[in-house]
């Protein structure tokens, strides 16, 4: 039986909801905070900032990361920047405009109250990070510089060269390191969450596997925060780091947390195209390049000439042609689909004809080589390292690739999942980006959740639990979860089949990319849903994991993650199939207008799909959270 979910949005006008909430939320006395233990899983922007802030408040915090150091989390790879409605440049920005741009960018599939809160705290994030010593780009007068980004007509993106994510993560990491040093946080590194434990429907703790010893241990806490990132690696080839996975979120899902909108995945338009079959990872080129790069393909099909020899009148600057007001800065989903269509029409460039040009020549002519070089040198150098081509001489070749997942664990206004006491922050939750995320908004959301939302909302949950007994790790539920995890990992080793986890991951990725990628059809999705269970069955019987389940075994780690990706993959396809409309990153070929643009169905699909685990992803129950828009008008998302 499906239910309708209550996001527990506070009362009052949109702009006052967060203040009202903060006033009404129950507080924990400073002296009592240390009596509460909070587990934070993941040390990216959301996890590190949450763990550090909670420890500063006085809570007892245990932080877990599967990396060797918290500083390695994949937030570090974000290049372009972080949005904030500071309006430092007086170009018409405001909290409401950032809110509106994000709602519109998300194709009206996100929760108004959450997005507005995000826009409200965006300014605090910049203040906080500058105080931490993040060396944001400055103007000569010493004030902060901004750049513009896709989907916005104001300059509101703060950046630190092409390494904004790195600098922000290091800021949060350093704050966390300080708390580890002071004893406020206990850090468990190289420890991967393998199960979430609930007792009487409430979150009681987690079970982790030590990646060095293979030992499986339980950890109890009053509240658990999952800040474990997105599931973009379901596509196998993506811009995500190799170790990004859905396991933590998926294990929580299996223990009762609803999984929302798994079909909302973002395909980033500017990645380096795949060069051969051995490739295991795609590299993103920051979207900021679209500020000065012009996207084009030859007008003629199968034009073999080098870019320089193709005259202006035989080039199709298709983004400028189709979307004159946003041009090369059209939002990600729109740019990605346009690139796919250009390549599918046979006008792709490069040896495999699988890319489009991103050309800096006119920017170099207009601004001079030095200015362009200063802006993008690290990206140009990275491109040259990977492809062996100099992008200031021949155009960069780019193609869309899986990059970010808007879907994730369903959370209410307090970022609590459907399991009381289990919170989810950052990319791992579904909350703020709707069906499409705007550039430079992921860093904003991660830090907003960790710094400015969770520290307030967790207290509201914990306050009534003061001095009440909570289940310890000797509780039978923990013992059962430990045994199940041991059996699971031992099971992978003992299958003794013939194919490696990577083999299955690659096959899985092909199916998801082909049928649940940039363009989806009912027919394709049904095909995927027929192929996936068969492949999963093969995985369970023909997997080969060498080595043992003791000590370091990266093949075994991978096997566990691929297992969860299989189950998620099925849910992604089911979600995509059931959402009979096109919106944001979810483009159903059946639902488009005469010009090939996404056609939303606000009457029937203005809701969040939150899936409930039943024991088999093929039978999961689709629950709804209705989305209401009191403050914005549901417009057709036009960037023309």
């Amino acid at each position, binding site marked *: 039986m499906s239910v309708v979910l209550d996001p527990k949005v506070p009362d009052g006008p949109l702009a006052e909801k967060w203040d009202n909430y903060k006033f009404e939320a129950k507080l924990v006395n400073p002296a009592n905070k240390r009596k509460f233990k909070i587990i934070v899983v993941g040390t990216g922007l959301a996890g590190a900032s949450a763990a550090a802030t909670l420890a500063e408040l006085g809570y007892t915090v245990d932080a877990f990361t599967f990396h060797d150091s918290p500083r*390695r989390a994949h937030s570090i790879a974000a290049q372009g920047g972080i949005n904030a409605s500071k309006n430092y440049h007086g170009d018409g920005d405001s909290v409401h405009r950032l809110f509106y741009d994000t709602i519109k960018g998300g194709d009206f599939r996100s929760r108004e109250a959450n997005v507005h809160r995000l826009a409200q705290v965006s300014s605090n994030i910049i203040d906080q990070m500058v105080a931490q010593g993040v*060396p944001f780009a400055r103007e000569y007068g010493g004030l902060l510089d901004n750049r513009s980004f896709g989907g916005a007509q104001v300059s509101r993106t703060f950046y630190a*060269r092409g390494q904004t994510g790195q600098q922000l993560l290091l800021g949060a990491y350093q704050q966390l*390191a300080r708390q580890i040093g002071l004893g406020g946080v206990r850090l468990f590194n190289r420890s991967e969450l393998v199960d979430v434990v609930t007792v009487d429907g409430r979150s009681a703790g987690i079970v982790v596997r030590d990646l060095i010893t293979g030992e499986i241990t339980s950890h109890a806490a009053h509240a658990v925060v999952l800040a474990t990132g997105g599931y973009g690696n379901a596509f196998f080839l993506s811009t995500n780091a190799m170790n990004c996975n859905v396991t933590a979120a998926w294990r929580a899902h299996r223990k009762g947390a609803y999984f929302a909108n798994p079909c909302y995945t973002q395909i980033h338009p500017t990645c380096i195209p795949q*060069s051969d079959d051995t490739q295991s*990872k795609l590299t993103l080129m920051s979207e900021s390049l679209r500020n000065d790069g012009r996207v084009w393909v030859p007008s003629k099909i199968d034009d073999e000439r080098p870019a320089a020899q193709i005259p202006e009148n035989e080039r199709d600057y298709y983004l400028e042609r189709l979307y004159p007001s946003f041009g090369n800065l059209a939002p990600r989903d729109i740019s990605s689909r346009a690139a796919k269509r250009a390549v599918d029409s046979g006008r792709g460039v490069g040896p495999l004809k699988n890319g489009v040009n991103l050309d800096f020549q006119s920017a170099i002519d207009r601004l001079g080589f030095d200015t362009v070089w200063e802006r993008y040198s690290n990206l140009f150098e990275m491109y040259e390292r990977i492809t062996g081509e100099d992008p200031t001489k021949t155009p960069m070749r780019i193609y869309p690739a899986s990059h970010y997942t808007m879907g994730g664990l369903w959370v209410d206004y307090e970022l609590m999942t459907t399991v009381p006491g289990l919170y989810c922050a950052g990319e791992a939750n579904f909350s703020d980006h709707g069906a499409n995320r705007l550039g430079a908004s992921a860093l904003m959301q991660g830090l907003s959740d960790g710094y*400015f939302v969770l*520290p307030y909302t967790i207290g509201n949950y914990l306050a009534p639990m003061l001095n009440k007994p909570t289940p310890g790790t000797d509780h039978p539920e923990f013992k059962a979860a430990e045994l199940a995890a041991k059996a699971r990992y031992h099971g992978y080793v003992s299958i003794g089949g013939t194919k490696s986890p990577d083999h299955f991951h690659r096959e899985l990725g092909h199916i998801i990319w082909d049928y649940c990628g940039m363009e989806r059809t009912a027919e394709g999705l049904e095909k995927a849903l027929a192929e996936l269970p068969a492949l999963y069955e093969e995985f369970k019987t023909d997997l080969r994991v060498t080595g043992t389940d003791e*000590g*370091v075994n990266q093949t075994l780690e991978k096997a566990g993650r691929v297992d969860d990706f299989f189950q998620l993959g099925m849910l992604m396809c089911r979600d995509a199939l059931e959402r009979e409309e096109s919106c944001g990153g979810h483009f159903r070929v059946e639902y488009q207008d005469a010009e090939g643009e996404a056609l939303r169905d606000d009457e029937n699909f203005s809701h969040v799909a939150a899936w409930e685990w039943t024991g088999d992803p093929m039978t999961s129950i689709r629950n709804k959270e209705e989305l209401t828009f009191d403050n914005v008008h549901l417009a057709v998302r036009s960037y023309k």
Partner: protein
Amino acid sequence: MEAIQNITLKVWRQDGPADGGRFENYNVPEISDEASFLEMLDVLNERLINEGKEAIVFDHDCREGICGTCSLMINGQAHGPARMTATCQLHMRKFASNDTIVVEPWRASAFPILKDLMVDRSAFDRIIEVGGFITAPTGGAPDANLIPIPKPVADAAMDAAECIGCGACVAACPNGAANLFTSAKIAHLNMLPQGQAERFARTEAMVEKMDEHFGSCTNHGECEAACPKGISLDFIALMNQDYRKSKFKNRKSLSRT
């Protein structure tokens, strides 16, 4: 796209921290020159699994040269022969057919080998934990534009802040010193106005924590050459300068209390 043929890999295999290790030879018959070095290892590992052998353990993650997880001593150079390039961004076009490539883990007493090519670099975290931060608890920050920072200062701090914490400096240093890593963080924070309050406490604490784990700097410059981010040796000089100042200033401030 061209294929590189007949690569001989000599890879260090070691079961655990306390075990002896040895080089093992593997042949890679063919690999595309577009492949990255780690993709070549992926291909080899998949073959090893198919043959029923244990895959070679190596640390890696983002493969974009920013997370600092990858390591490897390749042909006697940290991160291999390409300058300003982390192992994950090293591509096979830097090698030729019939090459022999020797791959070893990073060696330093502060970086014990966990298995094969994987080492434990937690000692870096210990250095950050004693002072590699600006104390600014969440919530009380003033407006970001309150303190203007001249562009050259912000740029110089950014140059230092680019460090990815991969440990190549330690691996490349003939003395196993971590001065480049430590100085990059000290320089990043000490150059900014926000970092001034804790400048000398930070410097003293971090340098002395570094001393517990690592060797000493004899100014060879190998660290700078190996650094995938090209962090400058000048930051080491800056650290040495601030440590000297900090010993005197901290002593003075202690005598006041």
